[in-house]
């Protein structure tokens, strides 16, 4: 009897664990256009979780882990004058609303409809996106998605104020003069394995 209970417990635990996938090396690519040169940055140290049981999906990356493709910008960003301690990470928390349709045994590309909140800096957006998932051999999930975030007018004002505070008064530039787009593209790629703890 005890052995049967142990086997049942072990089986249930394994089944539950088998439904949870994670990675600590997901990739988030952020892009914003402007008149001079597009600003692009990458973060390869993003942690992500996906539960096939509940449909919960979450990824989080530290702002300091972003590396700008433009070397000069990367140097400025890595200087100690930039303070990001108030909002240290980019975060998405959501749920796949059609998780019941997902088949772990299919090798085809499956699309999950994910609804959740995306937090960047002090911006929060309710977002609904399609997430493409391919099941690879060895229970590896390749997960790809693309978010778009439009910066609100009041946040552009905050950014202009920040530039006025930081730059000499004689340099009279703002985001509209630089042609900075209010749209931020966020691409996410994750190669997730089974969570084994």
């Amino acid at each position, binding site marked *: 009897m005890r052995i049967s209970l142990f086997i049942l417990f072990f089986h249930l635990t394994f089944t539950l664990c088998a439904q949870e996938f994670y990675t*600590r*090396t*997901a*990739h988030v690519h952020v892009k914003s256009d402007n008149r001079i*040169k597009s600003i692009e940055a*990458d973060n*390869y*140290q993003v*942690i992500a979780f996906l539960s096939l049981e509940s449909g919960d999906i979450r990824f*989080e*990356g*530290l*702002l*300091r*882990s972003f*590396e*700008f493709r*433009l*070397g*000069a910008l*990367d*140097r400025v*960003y*890595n200087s*100690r004058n*930039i303070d*990001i*301690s108030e909002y*240290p*990470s980019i975060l998405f928390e959501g749920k796949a609303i059609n998780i019941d349709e997902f088949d772990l045994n299919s090798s085809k590309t499956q699309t999950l409809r994910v609804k959740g909140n995306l937090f960047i800096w002090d911006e929060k957006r309710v977002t609904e996106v399609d997430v493409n998932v391919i099941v690879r051999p060895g229970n590896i999930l390749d997960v790809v998605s693309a978010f778009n975030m439009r910066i609100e007018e009041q946040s552009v004002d905050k950014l202009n104020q920040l530039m006025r505070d930081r730059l000499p008064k004689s340099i009279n530039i703002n985001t509209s003069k630089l042609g900075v787009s209010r749209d931020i593209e966020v691409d996410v*790629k994750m*190669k997730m394995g089974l969570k084994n*703890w």
Partner: protein
Amino acid sequence: MKKIIRFILGIVLLVLIAYLVVITLPKAKIDNAEVDYVIGATELYEQYEADEQKANASYLGKIIEVQGKIQMIEEDQAGATVIILNCDDGFGGVMCTLAEGSKARLFEVNQDITIIGLCTGKLMDVVLNKCVVVYG
């Protein structure tokens, strides 16, 4: 008139050179940077576990030399080597992503190692970026 044209051409040339310098400037590296803290992986992790805000005030954006044992070796999506240092926690550790252009080397689990990296905060692990192996 010629002087004005030369002046304008000079300005255009200067702007072009400045633009090329900005565009081709390499990314920030920490190879020759001064180390701010020398600490063991377990101690660093425990400080973050105890009080993340306080630990961030000390270590965020700073260059840290950290010693520990390799718990896991992975490769990220850019092909960089990622070394997780053991912190006797079971869940988290210290995650060190080796800098772009680091020489490909063989590392072993349980190997003692000393790594210098830029501390970017804590997720499940304490995260170090642009890392360089100094011992191991």
